[in-house]
């Protein structure tokens, strides 16, 4: 929603967010953000969500979804929680809901993402979900006067099924009642 855009801009300008991860866009005037939202709405393979908690805007997530010659998959590009709302568990709750969308709604086979090597909170969430590291770039991102590594991570459908398939479905399967 357009009403969310001032918060988006504020987060992109926040050095705590910028240290933890790449920003979706650079801070800008409201008209530019409206244009960005309009362009995002036209995207066929990229999905943007605002994250709410108790009716309040607390973050955003953006993923590309696709796969023609590759397994049907999601690539989580941005996952940002308002720094003033950190350490309240919103990251985990939102990540779980997002992956239910990937695996339970869209029937995707895998999800991938890249995380900075020192983003402990994000790495912990990813690990808890079932992501594993398949590659590690060294000295990839420069900020705060030094470089940080990047962890390339992948979560397969089997990990979702094993960890959450029985507890995180939106509806109980029809099964024999169908």
């Amino acid at each position: 929603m357009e009403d969310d855009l001032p918060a988006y801009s504020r987060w992109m300008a926040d050095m705590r967010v910028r240290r933890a991860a790449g920003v979706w866009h650079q801070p800008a005037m409201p008209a530019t953000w409206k244009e960005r939202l309009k362009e995002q709405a036209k995207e066929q393979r990229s999905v943007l969500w605002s994250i709410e908690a108790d009716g309040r805007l607390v973050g955003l997530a953006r993923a590309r979804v696709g796969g023609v010659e590759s397994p049907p998959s999601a690539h989580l590009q941005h996952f940002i929680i308002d720094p003033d709302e950190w350490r309240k568990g919103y990251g985990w709750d939102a990540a779980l809901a997002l992956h239910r969308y990937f695996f339970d709604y869209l029937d995707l086979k895998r999800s991938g993402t890249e995380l900075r090597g020192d983003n402990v909170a994000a790495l912990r969430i990813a690990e808890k979900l079932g992501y594993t590291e398949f590659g590690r770039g060294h000295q990839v991102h420069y900020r705060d006067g030094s470089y940080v590594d990047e962890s390339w991570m992948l979560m397969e459908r089997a990990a979702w099924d094993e960890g959450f398939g029985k507890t995180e479905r939106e509806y109980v399967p029809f099964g024999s009642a169908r």
Partner: protein
Amino acid sequence: MFGPRIVGDNGIELRPPVLEDYKVFTGWQMQPEVTRFWGPRFSTETTATAEERFKRHLESNDSVSWSIAYGGETVGFTGIFDISWTDRDGETGIFIGRHDLYGKGIASEAVRLRMAFIWNEMRLHRAHNWIALANQGSWRANQKSGYSQIGTYPRSWFRSGEWFDEWLGEAFPSTFPADKLPSPWRDKHHPK
């Protein structure tokens, strides 16, 4: 951006692309031998879109592209893309469109010239790439110029009845072999 002309060994050189190179690419892209390890096996490219792509690459601020010439004839492309000027990092790629010339060392020489330019003229800090693991010729060509493997992406894409993994690599200025520095940078350090 297009890169400048860099002359290598054995009749191989990098040179700024011309529109005709992009039109030739359209045909290469539909050949099964050429796309065995590269790109989708379908295309939406026409002469008109080739012109648009040529213009887009020329005007790009976050990439440098070259045509690869062998014996004076364009035989492929290479470049560095998605450059982050903050991180001083970019993704490199190479494409040899003439499959009858595979195995002649053209890719190895093109990668050597490209990386010498990236380190000595662009002052980048890092470069990385993704290559089909089964395409040993390509990742070995990159290894010769200082790339090392940092991971394997499993089951990246499906082709010819099987899944292909990808070889993930990275390189730094310090990993480029000093004894392979091409001219003109070699001449600067070792004047005749």
